[in-house]
């Protein structure tokens, strides 16, 4: 099976002014596409190595699969995490997710503060996540390095929202001022999507 670039559910410019159209286009057409291309290549080599019983090659390919497969997984989630304002981007979470946020973090403001602090403190490249621990039935904030998917931090973690803090996600617009990017991205955050994922994992009364 080969993977292909999922379409963005909105135009490249639709998230402005929070995220520029230039960034969205490069991020989607170049960065995400490259992860997919290299993921497909690595999978092909992996199938080959498995068929030949070449265990050394199988193990050697793991990092390429983690990098590129992780990049594909993470970015596929990311595009769904964002929405233009006119389609509900930035609209606050209601319902069960809203209550869970209050219960586990005190308030939405405190959650955002925490995620932004984690995002600013993350050294190098990586992601900040709002996750559901489906075993503990708790919301948690996690970070992952490079393109490590959330599951590398715990097999029971389900991603609700991810924020890409690789420099390519913001540099052309925000330069070195990552805190401003983090402040503004909440204006286009697609809480509807996060609520749907949460409700599916935690069906409640």
């Amino acid at each position, binding site marked *: 099976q080969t993977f292909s670039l999922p379409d963005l559910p909105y135009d490249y410019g639709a998230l402005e002014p929070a995220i520029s159209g230039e960034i969205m286009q*490069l991020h989607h057409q*170049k*960065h995400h596409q*490259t992860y997919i291309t290299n993921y497909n290549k690595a999978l092909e080599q992996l199938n080959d190595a498995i068929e030949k019983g070449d265990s050394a090659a199988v193990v050697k390919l793991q*990092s390429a699969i983690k*990098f590129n497969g992780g990049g594909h997984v993470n970015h596929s989630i990311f595009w769904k995490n964002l929405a233009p304002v006119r389609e509900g981007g930035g609209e606050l979470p209601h319902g069960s997710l809203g209550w869970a946020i209050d219960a586990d973090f005190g308030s939405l403001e405190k959650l955002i503060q925490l995620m932004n602090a984690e995002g600013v403190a993350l*050294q*190098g*490249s*990586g992601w900040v996540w709002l996750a559901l621990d489906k075993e503990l039935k708790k919301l948690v904030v996690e970070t992952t*390095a*490079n*393109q490590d998917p959330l599951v590398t931090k715990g097999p029971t973690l389900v991603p609700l929202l991810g924020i890409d803090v*690789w*420099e*390519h996600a913001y*540099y*052309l617009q925000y*330069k*070195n001022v990552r805190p401003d990017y983090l402040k503004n991205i909440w204006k286009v955050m697609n809480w509807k999507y996060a609520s749907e994922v949460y409700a599916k994992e935690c069906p409640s009364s």
Partner: protein
Amino acid sequence: MVPAAATAASLNCALFHRQGGLNRATRGLQWTKKQCTRKPGPAIITAKFELKPPPYPLNALEPHMSKDTLEYHWGKHHRAYVDNLNKQIVGTELDSMPLEDVVIVTYNKGDMLPAFNNAAQAWNHEFFWGCMKPGGGGKPSGELLQLIERDFGSFEKFVEEFKSAAATQFGSGWAWLVYKANRLDVENAVNPRPLEEDKKLVVVKSSNAVNPLVWDYSPLLTIDVWEHAYYLDFQNRRPDYISTFMEKLVSWEAASARLEVAKAQAAEREKEQRKRDEAEDIQGSEAVEMYVDGETEDSGAD
């Protein structure tokens, strides 16, 4: 840190200063997180590290590296590392140490102390500016070229390996050409190239702030492959940035100067190691003699 244009005299000063600092800081002491926290008492106003400008004007690398890039990369990123490092270490033991020693101590055998990121990135960036010059590129000459040809097969093969390392460093990091002084027994970290026993020159890559000082290598050349280093000029096209760096920016004079320093340091170390070995030999042989004398006397008494 000594800029590439320094005279031989000041290079030697840096050599001995670094040696002494390393010996004091890493061989005798057990550094713990506790020892690097703020001491009570009147606050010293600023710690001492300075943001030095690159050895050329910010627009001097155009069109290969834009003035914009230098303004942000040096003026914002590098400046922040230096300012934040000073804030972190003011009033602590780290404040009185040369930057290279701060890097090695805070690396702490891989269990990095909080100041490592800023210290290493301050060092890395100052080193990086010195690796480039207006009208750079071309080939090295003299001993550096000889060593490259010996250890890589050819200059072209070295370039291929260096470019590949830079292109395949996933996420943020650096690619390096380093001088390795043939010591596999590295005190403070795992040697990442343990098989390269006879080679003096090696290409290595590192992630985020890590640099080869922590592996006891002497860096000769580096390229910054954090996205902030190339995004304004090349966007996602890191391979193009790397090619431009090699063809138009790299300063082989600076690399050759560092090779001379590295060789001198290695020779000095070898001399000290030989002295220590000789001292141990003398001690050992004295002990044997004493034991033999004691036995003879006892048997004589009976």
